[in-house]
């Protein structure tokens, strides 16, 4: 169920250049049902900036009733968010959308998780849940540079992890697709989240494979009412649109026209 919760900040730290890891506690955590769902955060108590910011849930700790989000402080809204301190209360709407289907990869088989930049966070909870049920996870994480890369250790603890940076300051120089080439296609399922060009490259490289992609779009309501966040579907016959916030953000590969 979607709820509006006043969540308490239980942790906030800069884990890479302008990349923040924030921990929040509240009853909303109990409502989360799949990795890849997101929350819509009101960053200010006034009407400036006006709109909520959509941020993925990166990790859940049900025992502590705590969730982690990882975000880049870039524009006005996320910068304000990064100024919140432990103990502050934040208005959070969620959990929203449909996440990654963990059930699509049977135990004992291999899944490959490909993330780019701020698309990496939701893959962490996904990997935790997949590995917990006995799926072998391979992670391919792409960043611009070493100083904005994060969570290498956390992912490595869960499975084989490869890093690519555009400028070569960490891991392999280049894009996630360059790493993917070296891994081959001995896996059952792929899951990916990142910028559109990356999703397109991943989908094209793994044509014919079972995959799930998480999309981003500008949002208004975040709950499916305003038609701001639509994506075009590939079925060209009727030029249908689907909503990223409530039909997605995760869709099976091939559904969304990229």
């Amino acid at each position, binding site marked *: *169920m*979607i709820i*509006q919760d006043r969540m308490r900040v239980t942790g906030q730290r800069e884990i890479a250049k302008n990349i923040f890891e924030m921990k929040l506690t509240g009853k909303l955590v109990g409502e989360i049902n799949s990795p890849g769902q997101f929350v819509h955060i*009101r960053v200010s108590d006034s*009407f*400036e*900036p*006006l*709109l*909520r910011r959509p941020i993925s849930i990166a990790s859940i700790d049900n025992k502590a009733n705590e969730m982690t989000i990882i975000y880049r402080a870039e524009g006005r809204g996320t910068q304000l968010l990064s100024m919140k301190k432990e103990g502050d209360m934040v*208005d959070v*709407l969620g959990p929203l959308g449909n996440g990654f289907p963990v059930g699509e990869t049977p135990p004992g088989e291999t899944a490959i998780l490909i993330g780019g930049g701020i698309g990496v966070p939701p893959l962490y909870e996904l990997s935790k849940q997949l590995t917990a049920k006995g799926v072998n996870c391979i992670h391919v994480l792409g960043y611009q540079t070493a100083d904005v890369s994060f969570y290498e250790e956390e992912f490595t603890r869960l499975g084989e992890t490869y890093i690519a940076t555009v400028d070569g300051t960490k891991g392999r120089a280049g894009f996630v697709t360059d790493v993917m080439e070296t891994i081959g296609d001995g896996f059952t399922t792929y899951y990916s989240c990142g910028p559109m060009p990356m999703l397109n490259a991943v989908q094209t490289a793994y044509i014919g494979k079972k995959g799930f992609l998480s999309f981003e*779009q*500008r*949002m*208004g*309501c*975040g*709950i*499916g*009412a*305003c*038609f*701001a*966040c*639509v*994506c075009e579907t590939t079925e060209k016959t009727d*030029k*249908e*649109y689907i909503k990223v916030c*409530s039909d997605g953000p995760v869709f099976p590969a091939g559904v969304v026209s990229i």
Partner: protein
Amino acid sequence: MFGWTSISSRGGVDMNRLAVELPGLQLKNPIMPASGCFGFGKEYGNLYDLSMLGAIMIKATTLDKRFGNPTPRVAETASGMLNAIGLQNPGLQGVMENELPWLEQYDVPIIANVAGTETADYVEVAKTISTAPNVKALELNISCPNVKCGGITFGTDPQQAHDLTAAVKEVSEVPVYVKLSPNVTDIKEIAKAVEAGGADGITMINTLVGMRLDQKTGRPVIANITGGLSGPAVKPVAIKMVYEVSQVVQIPIIGMGGVSETADVIDFLSAGASAVAVGTANFVDPFICPKIIEELPSILDELGVEHISELVGRSHRL
């Protein structure tokens, strides 16, 4: 004054202080979500009981299904936002078969927002949708700035606005409100024209046309290039227009534009609106309508007012 007092004491319930009667509409309170900001109610129906609302203005309905504009469709601006959704909706048949019947489970009047490209479309949609049992009024959208033809072209020319209103009035089974565009030189002229055309009420304002450019590329952020501005930023413009129009027409006004908290409702009533719609604020706080409804009685107490209608048009009395 005494009339209202007796109504509230007869009912014994505080909420009667908020009840408002308008053509076709028995409103439990004067608060309703604005068209396009509440879909067809389903999403917000998961969050709270829609029966507590005064009414619901549903998303614009056109004759045929519409897919709307390319994305990005929204952009944030100072204390506001631009949108160019482009009237995406499931079309008359979809709304009649799926959306309106679903809303029947709630005890709440529906105001159907009707849009089109030419008079014949408006007339056909109005004729059919006004027969739905829970549609108690129509809101003629002659003010959408985000579609290429139709919509706003009717809303910027007094003669066309008059003729379209008259044509729709002829076929509608329920009272017709006309939604005015602020993107005109003199909104009073359009208001008078639709009143002469037989409108039962006016809803105002739709969004103000605006643009936002990307800092890096200099290109428009919204794919449609221009969008409609809404949110707290437009409220002073809306207040001024309600203030002016309410002094030149006899028909009631449902005011909107930037309503985000209870104090804004008081301002719109004071300016001359009889009821108030809440748009963009639903995105900021999905529970804003119930919150405002709950807060209204105590604000009336603070103002020393027994019934909410006493506030209507206070600004003119000076």
